[in-house]
C-alpha cells in the first residue's frame, strides 16, 4: 500500500515578533507545497513530554526552490500567540532550529468562481483570526474589504500592513477605540458603510456566532474558520467536533470534525 509522509522536521528560516507574545515563524519544507488558504499544520513542541502538535493555520506559502530530492521546497509561514507551555517552547526556538510539523490538514476557504464572482468580498479577522485570512487575501485577485479587529492598540495592528500591501482596503477596529474604529469587526463594517455580499471570517467564537447571525439575517454566504483543542489533527480522535445543523455523513450524528470537515465551514452548516 502506498503511504505518504505528512510529518517532517522543518528548519526555521525566519522568526519575527509582531506584537507582545505574537510571533510569525517561517519554515523551509517540502510539505505544504499544495496547501490552500484556511488549511492548518500541527507544530510539535521541541520537548518530547509534550506529545501533541499545536494546530496553527497557514499564513503564507511561497516558493523556496528545489530540495535535493527534487521535491518542491516552500517557505511556510505561521502566526501564533503564546498561549501555554507548548507555544512558549515553540516561540523560544530560533532561526536554524528544526521542529516537527505535520500538514497541510483540513479543508480551506472555498474560492470557486461561482462563489466569488461578482460579489463584494469582505474578510473579517478578529485577533488571531487575521493570520488565517492573509493567505486567502493573497489568493484573491479582486480587491476585497478587510476589517481586522484587535483588543487595543498594544497589538500593533499586527498583519494589517500585509493586507494593505496586497492591495486590499484594510480597516482597523479596536474594542476600546484606541486605534481605528471603536467596536468589533461587524460594528466597524456597518460604521464604514461596507455592504458585504460574501464574508470570510476567522476569530473568537462570539464573533463567529455574530457573523453567522449577520449572514443569515442579510441572506449572504459566509465561511468561517473554527478552532478547537485537537489530539490527532487528521480525523481519528474525534476531539475537535462542532455541532452541525444536519446529520454529518461521516459521524452519522450532528457532529463534524473541525480538523477534517473543517476548519472552514459554511455558516449554514454549523450550530455555533
Amino acid at each position, binding site marked *: 500500500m502506498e*503511504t505518504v509522509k505528512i510529518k517532517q522536521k522543518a528548519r526555521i528560516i525566519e522568526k519575527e515578533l509582531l506584537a507582545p507574545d505574537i510571533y510569525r515563524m517561517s519554515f523551509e519544507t517540502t510539505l505544504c507545497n499544495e496547501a490552500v488558504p484556511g488549511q492548518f499544520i500541527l507544530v510539535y513542541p521541541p520537548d518530547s513530554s*509534550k506529545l*501533541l502538535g499545536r494546530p496553527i493555520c497557514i499564513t503564507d506559502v511561497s516558493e523556496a526552490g528545489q530540495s535535493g530530492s527534487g521535491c518542491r521546497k516552500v517557505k511556510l509561514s505561521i502566526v501564533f500567540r503564546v498561549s501555554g507551555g507548548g507555544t512558549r517552547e515553540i516561540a523560544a526556538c530560533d532561526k536554524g532550529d528544526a521542529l516537527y510539523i505535520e500538514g497541510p490538514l483540513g479543508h480551506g476557504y472555498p474560492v470557486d468562481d461561482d462563489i466569488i464572482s461578482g460579489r463584494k468580498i469582505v474578510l473579517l479577522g478578529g485577533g488571531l483570526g487575521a493570520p488565517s485570512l492573509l493567505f486567502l487575501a493573497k489568493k484573491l485577485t479582486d480587491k476585497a474589504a478587510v476589517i481586522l479587529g484587535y483588543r487595543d492598540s498594544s497589538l500593533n495592528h499586527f498583519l494589517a500592513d500585509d493586507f494593505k500591501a496586497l492591495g486590499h482596503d484594510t480597516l482597523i477596529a479596536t474594542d476600546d477605540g484606541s486605534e481605528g474604529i471603536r467596536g468589533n469587526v461587524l460594528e466597524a463594517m456597518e460604521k464604514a458603510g461596507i455592504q458585504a455580499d460574501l464574508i470570510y471570517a476567522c476569530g473568537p467564537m462570539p464573533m463567529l456566532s455574530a457573523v453567522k447571525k449577520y449572514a443569515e439575517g442579510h441572506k449572504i454566504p459566509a465561511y468561517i474558520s473554527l478552532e478547537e483543542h485537537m489530539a*490527532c489533527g487528521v480525523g*481519528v480522535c474525534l*476531539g475537535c467536533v462542532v455541532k452541525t445543523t444536519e446529520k454529518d455523513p461521516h459521524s452519522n*450524528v450532528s457532529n463534524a470534525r473541525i480538523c477534517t470537515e473543517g476548519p472552514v465551514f459554511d455558516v449554514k452548516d454549523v450550530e455555533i
Partner: protein
Amino acid sequence: MDTQGRGYGLSVDFAGHHFKNPVTVASGTFGSGMEYSRFVDLNLLGAITTKGVSDKPWEGNPTPRVTETPSGMINAIGLQNPGIDVFMERDLKFLSEYDVPVIVNVCGHSIEEYEAVVERLADDDRVEMLEINVSCPNVKQGAIQFGTDPDMLSEVTARCKARAKDKPVIMKLTPNVTSISEMARAAESGGADGISLINTLTAMKIDIYKRKFALANKTGGLSGPAIHPIAVRMVYEASHAVKIPVIGMGGIATAEDAIEMMMAGATMVAVGMINFSKPDAVRDIITGMEKYLTDTKTSDIWEVIGIL
C-alpha cells in the same frame, strides 16, 4: 518468520486465533484505520482494534474533549460513534479490503445494548474477535459501572459470550479499581476468552487562568506514556491472576515499551495515544520488536511473554 525468512518471529496465538505479530491498536486511537491508512500500511499490524461501536449512533460529550498533560493527554470524547449499521456497511467493508484481522470494540449503556451489538457481529466473517468496553470513564450511564463491580462484570461477560457464537470475547478492563486481579478473575469466571487492559485512568485538569476545568466533562481519561508504568504493573497482576490471555496496553510508545508489557504477561499489545503524535508509530514499534529479537538472539516472541 521475519522478513528475511529466518526462523524466529513475532507471531502469536491468542484465544485460539493466530496473529502474524502481537501488535494491535488501542480502541479509539485509530478509528477504523481509514484516516491512518494514508500514512501507514494497515497490513503491517497484527490486528486492528476499532473504535467502540454501539447499537445506535452516539453523539459523545461537549467540547473541549481533549487536553494535553505531561507525556500524555486526558480525553472525554464520550464514545461518539456512528452506530453498528454504518460501522458494518462502511468501516468493516473498508477493512475487509486489507489483510488484517479486525477486533471490534463494543460499547453500550445497558447489557441489552451490548448484546444487540454482539449479536450483529457474531456471524460476520470480517470480525476476528470482540472486545467489550466495560471501562470507559466518560460515559455517565453504563460502560464503566459494568467494569467496576465484579458481579456485574461477570454477568456482562457471560451475556456477551452467550451471543458471540464462536467469536472470542475479550473484556477490556478499567484501572480505576482497587484490585485489578479481582476484576480479571470476574471476567474469567464469566467465560471471557481474554482480557485487555488498561483503559484510561480517571483524571482532571484545571486551567488556572480561565479558572475552569480544561474539559467540558470536568473529568476524562488519562492516557499516553505517563501511564505506562501503571499499566505494566496492572498487566503483571492481572495476568498472574487468570489463565486467559491478556492484551496489554497503556502508554506504549516504543518497541521497548511493548516488549516490557509482554514480559509483564501480555500475549498481545495495543498501541494507543502515540498514534496521535506519530501516525506511523506502529510500523516503528513492529520493526523495533523484530530487531529486539535479533539483537537478543531470541528466536520466538513466546520466549519473552510473562517471563517475570
